[in-house]
């Protein structure tokens, strides 16, 4: 393989029978999905649905067998380093280093992605300006608000010009204005670079507004897949057939409820205990 990517016609991401267990708990249980280049793909589902586990498998953090996950045609199990060069990753927690300035936070990622010395400074500036942190670049990240930290993390991920950006609940714990700001910056950069975005979220309005296609996960499996409009239309159809056509048009939240049902309290919630812990930690750091 001489080129950095397999073939340019390959899917940005393809999962085939992706499965992963923690001990006896099957967190992801046979997920098949493909994400087209340039798409914004949303992964929805209740806590414990397996979203974060799937993302950790895609980002090479969890060992999965060859053949399960490919990024732009490269197998994550076989060509780990090459895949990582294509990825930008923003984890669920607010993970910028509070003891460094915004610029230094981005600089670290420029270094570990081998940005040459003379290109480093302009690239860092461009990444910071793309997320609207040009003016705050030399302040300590510890003084940033939650929304600014998120945008800083976005800059950290963008500095290496990823082709697939993976965001795990990027707007969790943020106020509505900060949420919009994160998404606006993301949309701008995506329009300029044509990168692919894979995002998990609990906010149905975000999924509806910003995602081209959605996969709804529940208990480790994909239960529904399609554009937001299609998912809503399908539910409307289903309701019409069962004779309850009179209600208001279904929202994405109705779709979510339809597929995840009473999923919020089921026994599998224990499987993602760590998720909850991390979210709490994030919440306390934001608060």
């Amino acid at each position: 393989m001489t080129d950095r990517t397999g073939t340019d016609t390959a899917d940005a991401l393809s999962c085939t029978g992706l499965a992963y267990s923690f001990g006896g708990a099957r967190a992801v249980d046979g997920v098949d999905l493909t994400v087209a280049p340039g798409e914004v793909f949303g992964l929805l589902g209740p806590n414990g649905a397996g979203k974060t586990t799937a993302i950790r498998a895609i980002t090479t953090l969890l060992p999965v067998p060859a053949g399960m996950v490919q990024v732009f045609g490269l197998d994550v199990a076989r060509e780990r380093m090459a895949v990582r060069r294509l990825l930008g990753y923003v984890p669920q927690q607010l993970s910028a280093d509070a003891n460094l300035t915004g610029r230094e936070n981005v600089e670290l990622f420029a270094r570990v992605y081998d940005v040459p010395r003379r290109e480093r400074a302009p690239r860092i500036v461009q990444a910071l300006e793309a997320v609207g942190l040009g003016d705050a670049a030399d302040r300590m990240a510890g003084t940033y608000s939650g929304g600014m930290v998120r945008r800083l993390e976005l800059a950290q991920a963008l500095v290496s010009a990823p082709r697939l950006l993976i965001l795990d609940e990027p707007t969790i714990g943020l106020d509505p204005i900060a949420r919009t700001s994160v998404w606006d910056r993301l949309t701008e950069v995506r329009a300029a670079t044509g990168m692919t975005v894979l995002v998990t979220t609990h906010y149905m309005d975000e999924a509806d507004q910003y995602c081209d296609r959605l996969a709804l996960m529940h208990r480790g499996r994909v239960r529904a897949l399609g554009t937001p409009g299609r998912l809503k239309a399908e539910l409307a159809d289903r309701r019409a057939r069962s004779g309850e056509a009179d209600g208001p048009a279904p929202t994405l939240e109705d779709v979510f409820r339809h597929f995840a049902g009473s999923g919020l309290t089921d026994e599998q919630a224990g499987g993602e205990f760590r998720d909850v812990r991390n979210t709490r930690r994030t919440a306390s750091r934001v608060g």
Partner: protein
Amino acid sequence: MSATPVVPRPGSAESPAAPAAGLLGVPPRARPGWRVFPARVGAMCVVELQKLRHDRTELYTRAVQPALWLLIFGETFTRLHVIPTGGIPYLDYLAPGIIAQSAMFIAIFYGIMIIWERDSGVLPKLLVTPTPHSALVAGKAFAAGVKSVIQAVVVILIAAVLGVAMTWNPLRLLGVVVVVVLGSAFFSCLSMSIAGIVLTRDRLMGIGQAITMPLFFASNALYPVALMPGWLQAVSKVNPLSYQVDALRGLLLGTPSHLWLDFGVLILAALAGIAAASSLMGRLAR
């Protein structure tokens, strides 16, 4: 499947300063394989220095304990003459031991730090970059070394103020730097390895405290190994701290030492530590 990027949605792309892709559209080229390792180690050391530049409090607070060891313990025992030091004042004998001790205390903290970084998402993010586990661990190990060298300079200055007669030969001081870096690399890797096994901060803190004490006392940092009972001498023989102290004494004070053996043991220990910690790093990612 559309190969062209999906058209951005109206309503969110109307911001005045929509940036042209610029450099953010061009992925940086990978370094040739052999240069990745030193580059990552360099990146980690730079971060360590940047942090120290922003906040020197740790540097000051960490200088207190070694200063007290030299000032209280050292000044007292140098008058007691109970420990055979081979003819040099006890305070002089003690100073290299305290340098090694303070470097070890810094290094042992790195396991706790890596767990904190795991919990806060910093570590997972780094593990998704094109950085092999071994390069990440070596980076942390040498970052610990950087911090320890700065700490060593502080202790040497305090010792000099207290009248310890040390060498100012630059070549020997360079040797001191290497010894301190290698020792810190080993102890930080020891700590990161334990972190990779126990996985939580609480457990690691207990273990960290339980091992630093014996590592320190079962070494030649405070007294010659010859004074110890046989079984403790055996422990001291496999304790890298003893070799570190022996080398530091030889370099700083010119006392009889086994420099080649010391360097050999420290290099092997550091390499073994990096290997062990990197093989356990995957457990922290999971």
